């Protein structure tokens, strides 16, 4: 399993990370090391073992459909870097 620098760039773009050429180089190596280590798990025989999606031995946790107020508009917006008209204000999204 070998991850290419192009894949590192792709993942970085999806995560909105801006990497320098040195970082790309470094992370390509590091990610490969991690993947190589994880690949050791492939050696284990998992025949007949169901895939694990959760490590907790729990299922069907739910609540009743009840309404509780929590925050006021003022409280909700208290930490917003910018707010207007009762809303969070963000840079305009340009749909190209």
């Amino acid at each position, binding site marked *: 399993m070998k991850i290419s620098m192009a894949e590192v760039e792709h993942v970085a773009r*999806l995560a909105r990370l801006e990497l320098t050429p040195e970082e790309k180089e470094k992370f390509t190596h590091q990610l490969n090391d991690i993947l190589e280590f994880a690949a050791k798990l492939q050696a284990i025989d998992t025949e007949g073992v169901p895939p694990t999606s959760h490590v907790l031995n729990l299922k069907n946790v739910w609540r*009743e459909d009840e*309404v509780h107020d929590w925050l*006021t*508009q003022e409280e909700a*917006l208290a930490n917003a870097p910018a707010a207007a008209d009762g*809303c*969070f*204000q963000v840079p305009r999204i340009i749909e190209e």
Partner: protein
Amino acid sequence: MRKEDLETVIGLEVHVELATKSKIFCSCSTEFGAPPNTHVCPICLGLPGVLPVLNKKALEYAVRAALALNCEIAPFSKFDRKNYFYPDLPKAYQISQYDQPLAYGGYVDIEVNGEKRRIRIKRVHLEEDAGKLLHAGDDIAGAATSLVDFNRSGVPLIEIVSEPDIRSPEEARLYLMKLKTILEYLGVSDCKMEEGSLRCDANLSVRPRGAKELGTKTEIKNMNSFRAVFKGLEYEERRQKEALAAGEEIVQETRHWDENRSVTVSMRGKEEAHDYRYFPDPDLVPLIIDRAWVEEIRRSLPELPDARRERFQREYGLPAYDAEVLTASRTLADFYDECVRLFPDPKAVSNFVMSEVLRLLNAEGKDIVDTPLTPQHLAKLLGLVKEGTISGKIAKDVFEEVFKTGRDPAEIVKERGLVQISDEGELARIVDEVLAANPAVVADYRGGKEKAFTFLVGQVMKATRGKANPALVNKLLKEKLS
């Protein structure tokens, strides 16, 4: 490739907001139209360190919908995180279901030009809605900004994905209408497209008629009404067929329906973004749904539109068309059932509902339950016609007032002096007067002009302000003119 040799293939993804009181993973209200950011909490605002907990009612509604759509409920299902950045998604992931959805393998039957078509349903899964972006104008500094309201963030949705079994924009429209009707019958959603509680995206491709493989598809978004779905797909179908006929290739892309210009427009730059890096949400544990609960929900399903339509034909002897119209909404079908129970003449009730009631409902754009009209009113009104107290024509006038005010029909009839004149002596006197006043017309009739008779009936009606018993007027006129 000629356009006539191409067939259209459509699959729909329908998002439906569930009518729970609280959100899917927190206890904020789902109320529509509240001031912005007043139904929010740390969970639906995506603040760190919170723990989402599933709303049991949302799950129940989803199971209910899936069963009504003839799906299997998965023995095991789980929630996944769908990762992407957008300002209406505060966690930068949407909690959805990826490879193990709640339900799969269902179908909906629609009728196209009198023929039954089965549209298979691939899956039904649960997810959370995103917030709402409001695009404001430029602010004082001149910097363009958008505003975000998170009241909708975390409202429960089901996504219903069809197989690519739909063959025309009209079939797509019929399928969507059928889904809406079924979901309304179930009471799991109010299905208001104009409020965004029912939304529809489509995948459309064309291919040579009879081909097995699918052509390159485009995804069409932003069709916000039944009409827009039809128009948008019709446009896209034509665009793709023309492109292929001209030897061009279809580019796989997302296209936006522009209602004002009536065209679909390419949204470039979205192609590479379809890399959502799904993984199981560690905060939400798996669902292993008790089969007994599923069966309990199945037993609680109401009579669904198809079954009800068939019953209306069978039990009430209605024509297929009447049954279809009367069962198109549950509230109307309930109203009809109750009217027939009170006034057991199914055809008379059907005629009145389909003409007068629907005319006024359509004119005012209302649902029957939002008017003061009750089944008791209509049964009473039809009773007055049947016993000869008022004529059918007068009944229509009285009905308009009942519809607007919710007053008792008998009271209106009495107050406005609308009781039909069925007294033969009194009517005979009026008929004599009319005949005496119109000697020329009488002569015409006797000379063989049939139309003259209608005129004379009209004169008697006029003289009685519409209150004369029509059958009696006819009889008396015939007698006196022969």
